[in-house]
């Protein structure tokens, strides 16, 4: 049901029946290693390209989530997925493997929550009984596509971020035990004119703030309604910008509940510059770590604001600025 300008309230409270997170070797050394279902030791995953490895990671996340949910694959109506590769091949090839009717979405790193919001809307409107939503990314594949191939050895400034090698998936259903998706706010595209692909966090922060403010306004609630509000992958630089923008706009954001998935996933001694990023960042942290904490009863109400930078390698080469977006989804126990 539409609420306010750009938010949906899900009265039927679609249930996250199961979720899964899959990561790579760098994530295995990170701060949230225990919350991953599968951790791969090899960045290649035995494949001969990083793109193929990314597809395998996404497949593993989906298959594990479906298995954990106990729902039969043929009973699932739709699969919604996004990733960072050209023409979202990882998602489409995973859909080929799964054989579930498929919506491919592209919201860059916001794809995780874009997918979850649409999946919840389908359940809410009774367009589906079960939906799988997923998103994934691969560090080396993303570096190759958006920046330089890793072996080229180009220098990175401190504002740059580390793309997460990982994928997260959820199985959403009408009824059952588990965390409930209660609302979603769909973001506008915000472009503040930043064109540096090594400062995505700074570019995306205004989009995250815009969506957060829209969420609080549409639902007529305060940030303190939530136990935790996590942005997707703003990193140190972007998260600071977001805090300042919220403060400037008079939003009273309790700093102890305001987190960023890109800052949660790695340990402080890992060389990730400003923090983690990528579709897999918000997907693995939310579908692994945060949902686990909800199931343990440590968190009751959370809001995830997945942020995405909607540029392409071509638009960057043509010196276009980076349009950014953020989608917020609230999950409650």
């Amino acid at each position, binding site marked *: 049901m539409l609420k306010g300008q750009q938010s949906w309230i899900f009265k039927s409270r679609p249930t996250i029946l199961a979720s899964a997170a899959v990561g790579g070797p760098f994530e295995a050394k990170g701060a949230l290693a225990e919350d991953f279902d599968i951790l791969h030791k090899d960045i290649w995953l035995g494949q001969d*390209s990083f793109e193929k490895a990314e597809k395998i990671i996404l497949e593993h996340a989906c298959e594990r989530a479906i298995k954990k949910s106990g729902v039969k694959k043929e009973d699932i109506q739709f699969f919604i997925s996004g990733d960072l590769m050209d023409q979202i091949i990882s998602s489409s090839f995973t859909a080929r493997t799964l054989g579930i009717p498929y919506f491919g979405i592209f919201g860059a790193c916001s794809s995780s929550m874009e997918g979850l919001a649409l999946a919840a809307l389908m359940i809410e409107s009774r367009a589906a009984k079960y939906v799988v939503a997923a998103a994934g990314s691969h560090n080396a594949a993303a570096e190759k596509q958006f920046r*330089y191939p890793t072996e080229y050895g180009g220098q990175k400034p401190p504002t740059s971020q580390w793309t997460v090698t990982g994928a997260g998936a959820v199985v959403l259903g009408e009824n059952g035990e588990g965390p409930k998706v209660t609302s979603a706010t769909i973001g506008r595209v915000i472009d503040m004119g930043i064109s540096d692909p090594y400062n995505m966090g700074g570019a995306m922060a205004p989009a995250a703030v815009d969506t957060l403010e829209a969420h609080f306004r549409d639902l007529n609630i305060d940030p303190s309604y939530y136990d935790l509000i996590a942005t997707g992958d703003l990193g140190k630089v972007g998260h600071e910008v977001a805090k300042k923008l919220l403060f400037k706009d008079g939003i009273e954001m309790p700093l102890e509940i305001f987190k960023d998935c890109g800052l949660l996933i790695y340990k402080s001694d890992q060389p990730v510059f400003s923090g983690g990023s990528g579709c897999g960042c918000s997907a693995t942290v939310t579908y692994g770590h945060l949902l686990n904490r909800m199931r343990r009863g440590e968190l009751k109400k959370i809001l995830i604001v997945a942020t995405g930078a909607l540029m392409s390698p071509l638009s960057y080469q043509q010196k276009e600025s980076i349009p950014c977006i953020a989608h917020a989804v609230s999950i409650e126990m």
Partner: protein
Amino acid sequence: MGIFFWAFIIGGTICVIGQLIMDILKITPAHTTCTLVVIGAILAGFGLYDPLVKFAGAGASIPISSFGNALVKGALMDAKQTGFIGVFTGVFKVASAGISSAMVFGFIAAIIFKPKG
């Protein structure tokens, strides 16, 4: 001992210039390298690079700007001997050792290691 000192200062300065070009102008590493090659070529055209090599030794001959110097030096040398056509035949004469070794060692490395990422 003096040459070591100046090699350090001049070589370091060229690298600092490269780093500043990359950080301030926000251009790619490849563009930065090309810029240094062009600067070296221009200095060679005015006959300024060889004195720099004499003064700072490896400090001036190791950085990529020395490649620009080698290209122009070769072109000028052949131009003196054979005229206009020498500009074209001479460009790679001095630099050929560098270019050929890059190809050969690149080839060997590609055979031993996986050359794609």
